């Protein structure tokens, strides 16, 4: 349905997006995952024809959209990372305006606005000014404004940034519903692993402008199948113990938080025995050892050596 081919964007100094290839099939929810500054928003701006790529192409139903963006635009609903709303208008006035620019009017506009208000759960607050809304309500309206013209393809850029867990769950459920009930195709951008894991059929992981991994959620997790994620808790964190961990070639990606140490190790190594030995040698008391099933977070750690949120 939508395809990016060797998509590249060079800003003056930075290469924000570097030869990105990705595709979306009808009815899928695809995740685009990456830390801040990875180039997700820039990719989305190019996909949605808002900025021209430095090189590469965006194709919609096999046709390039660079010269002729109208068809893609008509099928597209964009939820921008920023709150693209009028804060001095009410929720309803905002939706009515965004409906009008999509050439809706009269009873049709009225009906659509009511439908969207119900979908995003703002029917009760429709006459309140947006500037008096909570962060979560603004985010929901930001999504609603993209749905008025019944897009076939919804592109969401970090739609849950900085909101309460309740609103976040509401949004995630809404996206799932849109996909299931209206067969809407969704590209969902986030730097929250658990959201992408919950929603997406397939995932692209992006870092420093490049796609560094892609596949179904399971395929991506299988990248880690050869390794364990081990989490240990110590009574008191000591330098010698940490030093000893680092000195072990089989232990990788050591991350410390308070008295909790996370690391990766190959499955064939008996990590328990090794850890006990090291603890004994350095007079460290181990409180607990846990083997964890890998998360996307771990995958990212594995791929880049950095945590997603830092």
């Amino acid at each position, binding site marked *: 349905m939508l395809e990016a081919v060797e998509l590249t964007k060079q800003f003056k100094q930075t290469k924000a997006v570097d030869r990105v290839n990705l595709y979306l099939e009808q009815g899928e929810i695809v995740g685009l995952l990456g830390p801040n500054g990875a180039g997700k928003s820039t990719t989305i701006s190019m996909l949605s024809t808002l900025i021209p790529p430095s090189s590469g192409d965006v194709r919609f139903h096999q046709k390039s959209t660079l010269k002729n963006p109208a068809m893609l635009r*008509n099928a597209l609903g*964009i939820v921008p990372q920023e709150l693209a*709303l009028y804060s001095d208008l009410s929720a309803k006035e905002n939706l009515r305006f965004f409906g009008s*620019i*999509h050439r809706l009017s009269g009873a049709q506009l009225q009906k659509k606005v009511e439908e969207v208000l119900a979908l995003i759960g703002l029917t009760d607050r429709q006459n309140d000014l947006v500037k008096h809304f909570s962060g979560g309500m603004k985010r929901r309206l930001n999504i609603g404004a993209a749905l008025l*013209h019944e897009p076939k393809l919804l592109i969401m850029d970090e739609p849950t940034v900085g909101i309460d867990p309740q609103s976040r769950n509401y949004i995630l459920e809404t996206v799932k519903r849109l996909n299931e009930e209206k067969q809407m195709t969704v590209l969902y951008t986030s730097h929250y692993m658990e959201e992408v894991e919950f929603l997406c059929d397939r995932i692209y992981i992006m870092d420093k402008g490049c796609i560094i991994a892609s596949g179904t959620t399971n395929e991506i997790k299988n990248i880690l199948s050869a390794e364990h994620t081990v989490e240990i808790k110590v009574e008191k964190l000591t330098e010698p113990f940490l030093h000893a961990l680092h000195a072990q070639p089989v232990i990788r990606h050591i991350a410390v938080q308070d008295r909790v140490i996370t690391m990766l190790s190959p499955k064939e190594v008996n990590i328990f025995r090794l850890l006990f030995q090291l603890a004994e040698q350095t007079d460290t008391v181990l409180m607990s050892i846990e083997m964890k099933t890998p998360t996307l977070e771990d995958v990212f750690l594995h791929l880049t050596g950095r945590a997603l949120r830092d």
Partner: protein
Amino acid sequence: MIGAFVKKQLLLLVRNRHEVLILLGMPLVLITILGFALGNIMDGDHAAVHAKVAFVNEGNEQQERQTFIHEIDTMNIPQEKKQLLIEAAHSIAPITVLKQDVFGDKSVKKYIRIIDVPPAQLEKVRQKDSYAVIIHVPDGFTHQMLEHLLLQKEAPPRIIFYTNEEKAWTAEMVRQIVDDFQRQYSIATALHKAGITHASANIAAHVNGKMETMTKKEPLRAVTYYTVGMSVMFALYIASNIGSYAFEEKRSHVFDRMLLANVSRWAYMAGIFLSATLLACLQLFILYGLTSVIYDITWTDIPAFFVVTLSLSLAVGGLAVLLTALNFRTNSEQASRFFQTVLVTIFSLVGGSYFPAGQLSDFISTIGTLTPNGASMNAYLKLLQGYHFSDVAHSVIYLCLFSIATLLLSIWAFPKRGNES
């Protein structure tokens, strides 16, 4: 869809109390302060109309009269009649009466300034448009007048007028004065011949009386002057405001939503233009409406008032689109800011919003009328003085052209995709 743009803009402005206060409250306060604290600087002897009239005299009154007397002398008529005619001829001096008694009268001088121009310069003066009217007295005028009045010969001689279309109403007024003078002069001479009254004094009195009723120009009150000055100045702020709102739409990515909805930049610009024009109209109507109630500033020629207001609003609309285009182009609010802080101040100064700056020099006066506020201020003040619409038509045309020019510039300046960075 453009209706939705306008409605949205109206709602946004109305919700912003701070801005409404600046656009409506500030001018009212300033009108009151300037209008009353500064007193009646516009009042008193200050002429309301200052029509410049060129007077080109090709004839020579004295010489022509001598010729006429000489002709009578050689005529074959009774000596007694000759004596009577010669005596009468001595008291007839139409040009002197016109210049000294009619145009020289104090009440007329208030409105009209006569400037003598040598006949050789007639063509040159006709090229200039600083004169409301040129009065051309042809060679032999006095001689013909004497023949007409005393010998009942031919038709009366005619004074030639060249009128300036821009100042049509003033010119018409002068022409009527002179026409009236000629008619009265004939009657008075006839009466004088019959020994009833002394001619010239009466004519002047009559013509001047007529002049008063025709000009009816009230000297402007200061509060009237500042009502116009402040209203046209604050109308300009609509343009920068709308420009800033538009940039905010770009900054907050609302404009992206419009691009994605395939809203063309033409539709977007049309929305800006209509919103700003409508808001300027509303603002001006409210300000003039309130001042007409509070300060008793009445508009007698309502249709002309509407036309001037609309043309100023169109100019403001054009400016709003231009500022929007420049804001988008520079991807900043600079254009709006610069206009709001620097240009409006300069425009208001030379346009005469603070004091009649045009009186300082012809140069400032010309520059002033090139600003939209200056042009409209001229027009409004003239209407308030009782001028006719034809006397302000050139300002209206200028404002419409100004609007078109700014729109063309905007089309050139507006970024093609609206979104390059």
